[in-house]
């Protein structure tokens, strides 16, 4: 019985280490993932450096202790002629050494921790952009307070290099705001106006998500951070500040615009569109609307906290009909939102395919 066990140790040891190594490899090159090890800004970068630092310290301790343990197991296994071991009860010198040694390691880690913490607490320069982030169940609203209070949902556009200051607000339950490649989490707590900041060093589209359990659709409370250069950002801001374009008379989109405001679909009882049912972003009517503001929906990419994506290419309309409705996320959403995101507030009267197509045409026009 002994030998197979002995061989088993080696065999499984190899297998497990191969497994661990391969998974580390996967992590290092998880290109599609919002990996905290692939940061795009200074905050996440500092957090990553700290991770590699701890990983090195932990690996040293791990190898030393597991090595000693495994060595002891092999070296001191009971053999037929093993003598009775010496009855050693302890050694105070050794105890002091191995109390002090880990203390030194841990102290080094602690210094690094507190140093980085203080460094990250405040940005070095004043904020370039201030955004009020509102956590809803289950989607994010972004209110650009320094740009005339226009609002978007599920997509936070920022210029690269800018210090972005976020004010985190919730009037329902606790959420947590996280952009793995840009910054760690800060909780969004009713009654506590937390703040956080980040800077994106390069352009790109970065995954963001809610990280505090907030109910049934916690998994679908995603958002995108879209980092663009300063000029693109200013153009985008001007577009967003403007009212929605009025669709051309007689177009499919115009029928959609009418449907949006009609009782048949019921959209406008929860959603606002500046230029349709709202006169401006500051319109007091807007405060009573519980759904995302859709004024420039056409320029966004996520539907309802990322449960589906909005991609005009897969929602092509030819002869007033969707070419491939099953491929079109927005069609599925408008057809039966409760099947897609059970428990969410989104309800809609049952619409015909023709009506949904009109709405899609209208929403697409809201660039």
């Amino acid at each position, binding site marked *: 019985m002994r030998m197979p066990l002995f061989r088993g140790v080696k065999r499984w040891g190899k297998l497990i280490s191969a497994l661990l190594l391969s998974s580390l490899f996967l992590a290092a090159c998880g290109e599609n993932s919002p990996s905290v090890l692939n940061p795009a800004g200074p905050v996440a970068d500092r957090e990553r450096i700290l991770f590699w630092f701890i990983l090195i310290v932990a690996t040293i301790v791990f190898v030393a202790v597991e090595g000693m343990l495994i060595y002891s197991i092999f070296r001191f296994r009971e053999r037929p002629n093993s003598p009775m071991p010496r009855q050693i009860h302890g050694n105070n010198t050794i105890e002091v050494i191995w*109390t002090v040694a880990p203390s030194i390691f841990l102290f080094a880690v602690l210094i690094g921790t507190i140093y980085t913490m203080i460094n990250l607490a405040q940005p070095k320069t004043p904020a370039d952009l201030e955004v009020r982030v509102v956590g809803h169940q289950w989607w994010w609203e972004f209110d650009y307070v320094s740009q005339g209070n226009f609002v978007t949902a599920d997509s936070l556009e920022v210029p690269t290099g800018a210090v972005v200051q976020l004010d985190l607000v919730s009037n329902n339950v606790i959420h947590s705001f996280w952009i793995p490649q840009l910054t760690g989490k800060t909780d969004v707590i009713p009654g506590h106006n937390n703040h956080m900041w980040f800077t994106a060093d390069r352009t790109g589209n970065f995954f963001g998500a809610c990280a505090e359990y907030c109910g049934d659709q916690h998994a679908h409370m995603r958002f995108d951070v879209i980092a663009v250069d300063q000029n693109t950002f200013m153009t985008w801001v001007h577009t967003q500040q403007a009212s929605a374009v009025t669709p051309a008379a007689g177009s499919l989109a115009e029928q959609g615009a009418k449907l949006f405001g009609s009782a048949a679909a019921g959209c406008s009882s929860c959603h606002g569109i500046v230029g349709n049912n709202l006169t401006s972003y500051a319109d007091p009517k807007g405060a009573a609307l519980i759904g995302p503001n859709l004024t420039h929906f056409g320029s966004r990419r996520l539907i309802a906290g990322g449960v589906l994506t909005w991609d005009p290419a897969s929602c092509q309309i030819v002869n007033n009909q969707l070419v491939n409705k099953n491929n079109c996320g927005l069609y599925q959403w408008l057809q039966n939102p409760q099947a897609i995101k059970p428990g969410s507030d989104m309800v809609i009267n049952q619409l015909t395919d023709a009506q949904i197509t009109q709405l899609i045409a209208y929403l697409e026009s809201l660039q």
Partner: protein
Amino acid sequence: MATRTIGEGVVVERQRRLSETYVGRWITTTDHKLIGIMYMVTAFFFFLVGGLEALLIRTQLAVPDGKVLDPATYDQIFTMHGTTMIFLFVMPMLTGLGNYVVPLMIGARDMAFPRLNAFGYWIVLFGGLFLTSSFLFGQAPNAGWFSYAPLTELTSACGNAVKCTPGLNMDFWVLGILLLGISSIAASVNFVVTILKLRAPGMSINRMPLFTWMTLVTSFLLLFAIPSLTAAAGLLLLDRHLGTHFYQQAFGGDPLLWQHLFWSFGHPEVYILILPAFGIISEVLPVFSRKPIFGYTFVAWSGVAIGFLSFTVWAHHMFAVGLPTVAQAFFATSTTLIAIPTAVKIFNWVATVYGGKLSLKAPMLFALGFIAMFLIGGLNGVALAVVPFDYQATDTYFVVSHLHYVLFGGTAFGVFSALYYWFPKMTGKLLSNRLGVWQFWLMLIGVNLTFFPMHILGLLGMPRRYYTYSGNLGWNELNLMATVGAFIIAAAILVFIWNVIVSLRSGEQSGSDPWDAFTLEWDTTSPPQPYNFATVPIVRSRRPFYDKKNPDIADWKTATH
């Protein structure tokens, strides 16, 4: 019918008492050994329930866009998995082991308060059944084992268009937790008094077996930690049903009050779940290494140090809530400090093994596995104390990995070590070592396959408590790996169940001392008589039974203590 002698030669028939039937004997017993076994069987039943819930979770997450569970069901399952494993498996299992072993170890006849002991057990059973019965109503608790307010409030109380918890779900949780708290307090009081007052002559505090030490520390932790949970849950109940607003900011309450109250229970709780396992392997390692524990004093007092420090670290669960930097630095420091006594323990265990004569039987394998796995859980725990990294790692699968290396790689390995070690004492039969070795390797592989990839999932940005994820984020392979691992663990548990059945039926007779052990529980029959010891044992060192078997080289003759 039983008979009774009422005079010389006069025998009359009488009704059999309830306590004389097989079932009645268990229901009416106040014997710590029977109560201990009932605790353990109950805990193991709930372990299977919690395990089934874990398999459902892993099945749902095996592939992206899983359709096995709808979100509302998934929330109930993951909430009950945590709640069941912590409150209905680990805590009763460790209480059961303590119940069985501690009085024997210290040479006592029973626990100090036998009826309180029975009361505690029955509360656990009915509290557990009450909590689990919520599934029958389709309204199992669904806000996580941490039950953060205000998500746990009634909808009407937390604003417009807000989805909280209108159903009975949280009421089941709150009432269940309050019940189980009563049981924990009863058991803790009993352990404290038993250990402080009923030790055999000569067993001074610094001669107590380390499992007894750790049970004592754990009992004190429970006595101070449970009230905080009770207060938190009680206030939540008031909020839900009597219109108070403790956790509602709109009315002057504060959601963070819940978190402070909950975690000032919750972090000592983590040590409540692991300290007895420290005790278990501090018993097993010496016996199977044929050496005394290395640095007894340091192992014992590092446990006490951990106990004290565990009350100063709660806010490390709350680094993302926006505490002031100074407060965060304080909790980072206290959390770093608690790693020192933990490290000291690990070094002492390795030193105990070093230079020994290791008999690699199942209890020893699990004890060694405990050290290997708990070390990983300790190291990634230190990583979480590094506040800026914690901002990234908290609420991701990195934390899931950490806590399972501690509670499964640690506590569960410790529990199985204990079960293989003390099963012969409880039943008079040995568990099959061959099956034990199988179970050990399956579990070791399963644990690493399930929980190691979760470190990486966390680093790759996967948050916890998501009922599904999309396939384009690079998380697919690692999730599948974890699911395969979970089923390997399930296979290991089936091997254990098979082992218990086979061994109870036709296992090898163990005799009273199958491991040539050191402590008093082996100095009596297996299973022991209701009175435990025919004569009161006399203790002259930390290894009284070793002394008795080796009078020439007894510890009290050769060692300095």
